[in-house]
Structures are given as C-alpha cells and as structure tokens.
C-alpha cells in the first residue's frame, strides 16, 4: 500500500484540478517531405505524426481492390524514456499501433482510393503517460493536413483513478501509482472509436470517467481545429463559424 498522497485539497501533484488537461501545444505541417504532419506536446509528452499517401502499396499482396488500407506505426524513440529503450517495435507498440489505427479507420473514407495505402507514423520523442492519446490527436491533424477525406477529426485523452478519485489526463506518476487508467478517443459527434482500461473501476466510476474524458476530448478538438484554421490567417474573421454542430 502506498503512503504517498496524490491529491491534497483538490490539487494534484502538478497543481491541476481533477478536470484539467495538461498544457497542449500543436503545430501543423512541420515535415516538408511528408504529405501531412503534426507535432504535438501534451504535458511532457512530445510526439510527431507523419502521414504519407494515398500511395502505391508495397508489398502488393496487401492491397485491397476497392479501398485504401491504413498502416499505423506507433514507435517510441530510445531516448523518449528515462531508462534507454531498445529500438524497434515491441508487443506494446504492436498493440498501440493496432488500437490507434482502429481509432482512426472509422472516419477515413478509404473507398476513394482503391489499391493504395495511407501510412501514418507516430514517433514518441518524450513520454509522460498518454502517448497513445497524443499520437492519435497528432495523427488526426496530420491526416487533415495531407488532404485525406474524413468524416471528422478524432480527439483522444485519458481519464484515471488516483487516490480513489476520477481525474482527467493522468501524468506519469499518477498513471504508474494510480488505480486505473482509461484512454478514449471520440469523434466530435460523441462516437467512441477507442476505449481501453487498465486497473479497476466500479460502474459509477466508469461512467464518471467516460464523461470526464469526453469533456477533455472536446477541449482537445477545439485546439486541433484552431491550429488547422489559423494556418491560413487571411480568413481570420470567418474562423468561428465552422464549428456549429
């Protein structure tokens, strides 16, 4: 049993309240060679997403005759964690790649590009709990930057249970020593495309966590939208009108 206290008088270790996200920074179009790209910081997480495609599939046998396939590669750089991580994919990377791809597939209109592939690469440069959610957020923006037709963006963040309390966007220590961690991804219309959980929650706590995480995702969606719209600032006066739903 831990003697450590993570929440005191409603304030967490890093000074946040239970429903506050960590500071976010996003930049679009950072890689000139990629068709679309996005750099994102979520707290101390630093990730970069690159999108290539649609392009010819190699090896050919993977191609689908009437749609594009999506390849998502989540990878952590050796220097992204305190103890040097051996380079290359491990079981965790394969899992994160698969669930992240499945978080984005429902919104991408793959039928527009038969026999091709849309390659998404997410590289974690610095990790501090929540890298898969940061990756999905950056990948969404990079896909838009690449001109890929989508029903909407996808926004992602996690809720956790720390000191018995449901909190938004756990950082590393909260994730490592907390009782539960639940990353989700949703579309702006509230449809869930990613839902995972580590740990234990009661039904009520789970409902609370979903509501809290959804709110966090909505805030992230506003930031994703703003970074894309602001890029072409000639149209400043019309920015606010597009997000009515």
């Amino acid at each position, binding site marked *: 049993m831990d003697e450590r206290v993570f929440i005191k008088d409603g304030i967490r270790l890093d000074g946040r309240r239970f429903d506050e996200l960590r500071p976010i920074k996003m930049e679009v179009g950072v890689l000139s060679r990629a*068709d*679309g790209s996005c750099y994102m910081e979520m707290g101390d997480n630093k990730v970069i997403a690159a999108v290539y*495609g*649609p*392009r*010819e599939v190699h090896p050919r046998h993977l191609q689908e*005759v*009437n749609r594009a396939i999506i390849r998502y590669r989540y990878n952590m750089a050796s220097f992204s964690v305190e103890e040097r991580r051996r380079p290359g994919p491990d079981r965790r990377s394969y899992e994160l790649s698969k669930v992240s791809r499945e978080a984005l597939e429902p*919104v991408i*209109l793959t039928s*527009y*590009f*038969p*026999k*091709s592939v849309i390659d998404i690469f997410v590289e974690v440069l610095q990790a501090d709990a929540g890298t898969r959610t940061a990756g999905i957020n950056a990948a969404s923006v990079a896909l*838009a*930057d*690449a*001109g*890929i*037709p*989508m*029903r*909407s*963006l996808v926004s992602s963040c996690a809720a956790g249970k720390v000191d018995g309390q449901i909190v938004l966007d756990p950082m590393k220590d909260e994730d490592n020593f907390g009782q539960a961690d639940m990353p989700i991804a949703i*579309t*702006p219309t509230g449809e869930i495309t990613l839902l995972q959980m580590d740990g234990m929650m009661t039904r009520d706590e789970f409902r609370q966590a979903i509501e809290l995480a959804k709110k966090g995702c909505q805030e992230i969606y506003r930031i994703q*939208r703003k970074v*894309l*719209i602001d890029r*072409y600032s*000639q*149209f400043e*006066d*019309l*920015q606010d*009108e*597009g*997000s*009515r*739903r």
Partner: protein
Amino acid sequence: MDRKIVIPGDLLSEDTRRSGEGTYVRNGKVYSLLYGIASFREKISVIPLAGKYLPAIGDNVIGVVKDITFSNWILDINSPYDGLLHISEFPKKIDVEDMSKYLRIGSSVMARVKDVDPAMKVELTLNDRRLGVIKTGRVVEISHTRVPRLIGKGGSMISMLKKELNCNIFVGQNGRIWVSGNEEDMDLALKTILLIEREAHTNGLTDRIVDYIKNARRARG
C-alpha cells in the same frame, strides 16, 4: 463572404440538396470531407488545400514515361495511380518494336485521360491536335490543388496569362504545366506560375498578377 476555411466534419448546411464536391450528407445535414476552402454557391463544395491528384475522364495531364510493356507505355502522372498509354492511342501508327524509338523512358507527354475504371486503371490518349510528345519548352510542377486557381473562373486567369506572357501554355490537371516561348518569356512565365501557386487562396489575385507581369517587363526594359 462566400468562401471560408473548413476542416473535415464542419457543418456546412441543413439543406442536403446543396451537397457538392468535397462534402457529405449525414442525418439531413451537409458536412465537409476535407481540410480546404468551402465555397457557398448554389452547391456547396470544398476545395482541398492539399491532397493527391485523382485522375478523372477528360482531364489534361502531363505524364513522364517510366516503363514500356508489350503494347503500353506506363506513365507517372503525379498520382497514386499510373497512366497507361496504349500503342493505338499514339498519334502515329507504329509497330510495337518501335515504341521506345518514338517515346522512351524519361520522356514527357501532354495527354488526356480517356477513361478511368472503378479499379483506378487510367487510360490516356494522345489522339488530339493539342496533345503529343514534349520536345521543346519547359515543364513546372505545382500542387494540383492550385490548378483551378491557375485556370480561373471560366478560364479568366489562364487566358490573361497566355496573352500577357506571350507563351504557349498547357495546363495539366495533375499540377504539371508546360510553357513554350523565348527564354526570357519562359523565365517570367515560370516565376508567375509559382507566385500564383503561393497566393492561390488570397483575394484579388488576378489583378495583382497582371501588375506583377507588367512591372517585370518594365524592369526588364
């Protein structure tokens, strides 16, 4: 304003009849499919700011030969899909053995898209007076999303350019543009085309380009 920047999923209209290119309909409303500029005319359409060129029947394109098979040239048309030029679509009747003599790997052609099937097999043709193998002039490549702006409403921009620049211009929908004229005029033409690409999303561009060309000529003396 009848134009504005939108992202995928932005709500454009509650009237499903107005759904145009780059939009989709869901639950009786029209949404954007793309990150681009929405234009609000009778039909609402979204023009992408980026993306790959997808060949459509009737498009003019400039292709580069990358392979020769038994009776087809295979061309790179700056798209995820290759263009196929069958020997029967070559303007002259030639034998299969002579294919590489008339059009070899690395050469460019001004072609038209004859057909695109659902599996994205793209057939090209050179059977038209204005099409053929490129032997003179220069080819420049811009983002294909800027080509509509280069052509202008009803061809207004491109007609002005042909006149003011004193060059022959062939605009490929795939973003490749061929110009032909004397050396100085071609230099100015290329600079002008790249300028239009950079400023395609701004207002009052046509007039600014006319001024740019006039100033450049005056400076030349």
